[in-house]
């Protein structure tokens, strides 16, 4: 099928669509209203919930900071606080950049450029989250254990055993997720290259 032949088929199909496709007034109004709620639930709510949980952890650790008795617990708490404060902000910013494509004011090329750059940044934050998330678990568990139960997990041999068992599984998972992220990054790179041509 040549392009000219495709065009002829397309015109035939368009004529059929024009005859068949009907959309009611109510449906159009519903589309604009329900969509607004969707945007809130799909993007904002899960991200904001995650950020709030992170900040709640931060406040709890800061309030009880004086209860951390050893230097290594203080180090763990500081690392945990930095990750809990920086990562959600970076993530929200990346999502905002990716979603803030100027739909009405841009042409298609500008919209694609904006989206591809935003997506690359988002993937970078996701990759960062994967590894810092593992570090966060490692440092937050002993801190919370001391604050909530008054126990020093670093003095318990079992903790290190569990960490050692969990590590290979994390590596497998990380490798799998990393592969997905790299695929998306490559797709965005190729899209950016296509736009530059």
């Amino acid at each position, binding site marked *: 099928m040549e392009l000219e032949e*495709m065009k002829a088929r*397309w015109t035939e199909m368009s004529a059929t669509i024009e005859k068949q496709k*009907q*959309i009611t*007034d109510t449906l159009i109004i519903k589309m604009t209203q*329900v*969509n607004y709620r*969707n945007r809130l639930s799909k993007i904002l709510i899960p991200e904001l919930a995650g950020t709030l949980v992170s900040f709640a952890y931060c406040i709890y650790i800061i309030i009880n900071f004086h209860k951390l008795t050893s230097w290594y617990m203080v180090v763990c708490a500081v690392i945990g606080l930095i990750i809990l404060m920086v990562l959600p902000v970076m993530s929200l910013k990346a999502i905002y950049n990716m979603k803030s494509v100027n739909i*009405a004011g841009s042409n298609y090329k500008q919209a694609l450029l904006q*989206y591809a750059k935003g997506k690359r940044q988002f993937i970078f934050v996701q990759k960062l989250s994967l590894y810092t998330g593992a570090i966060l678990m490692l440092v937050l568990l002993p801190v919370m254990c001391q604050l909530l139960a008054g126990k020093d997990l670093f003095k318990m041999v079992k903790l290190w055993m569990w960490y050692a068992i969990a590590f290979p599984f994390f590596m497998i998972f990380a490798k799998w997720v990393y592969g997905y992220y790299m695929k998306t990054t490559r797709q965005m790179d190729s899209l950016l290259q296509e736009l530059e041509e």
Partner: protein
Amino acid sequence: MDSKKEFIAVIQANAGLIYKVTRVYTNSKEDAQDLYQEIVYQLWKSFASFRQEAKITTWMYRVALNTSVTYLNKSKKKGAHVQVDEGLLNQPDATDTLQEEQLLILYAHIKNLNPVEKAIVLLYLEGKTYEEIAAITGFSVTNTGTRLSRIKQKLINQIH
């Protein structure tokens, strides 16, 4: 209220345009519903700023294609959406089996193209001039011509 009525009339008159964009940029009925709804929402949001535009369809294609950008790399989306159940997103009834088959092949070929090529070929098939395609996509007229030649070659290679 008048602008709402005007908007509804515009959407009703160009429902096919939105349908064709959603068909080209999605792979499932759920995504198509979601994108259709999102396009209508984005059109409504920017309806007030459209008035200065020369052609309503140019503005509609621009908004529809730009909205589809945010749907790249998306698989089935979950969540509430308006049930566009009035046959709106179904394949139009073809007059014969051969026509239906050709339509499916046509969509399959377009879906194999990258997002830029999809937009250009869609606008070309819709009968837009190089100047109109350039205005909607942001590529120069010359670049649009070059890209279309490449797409033609790519489609020939896909078919054979």
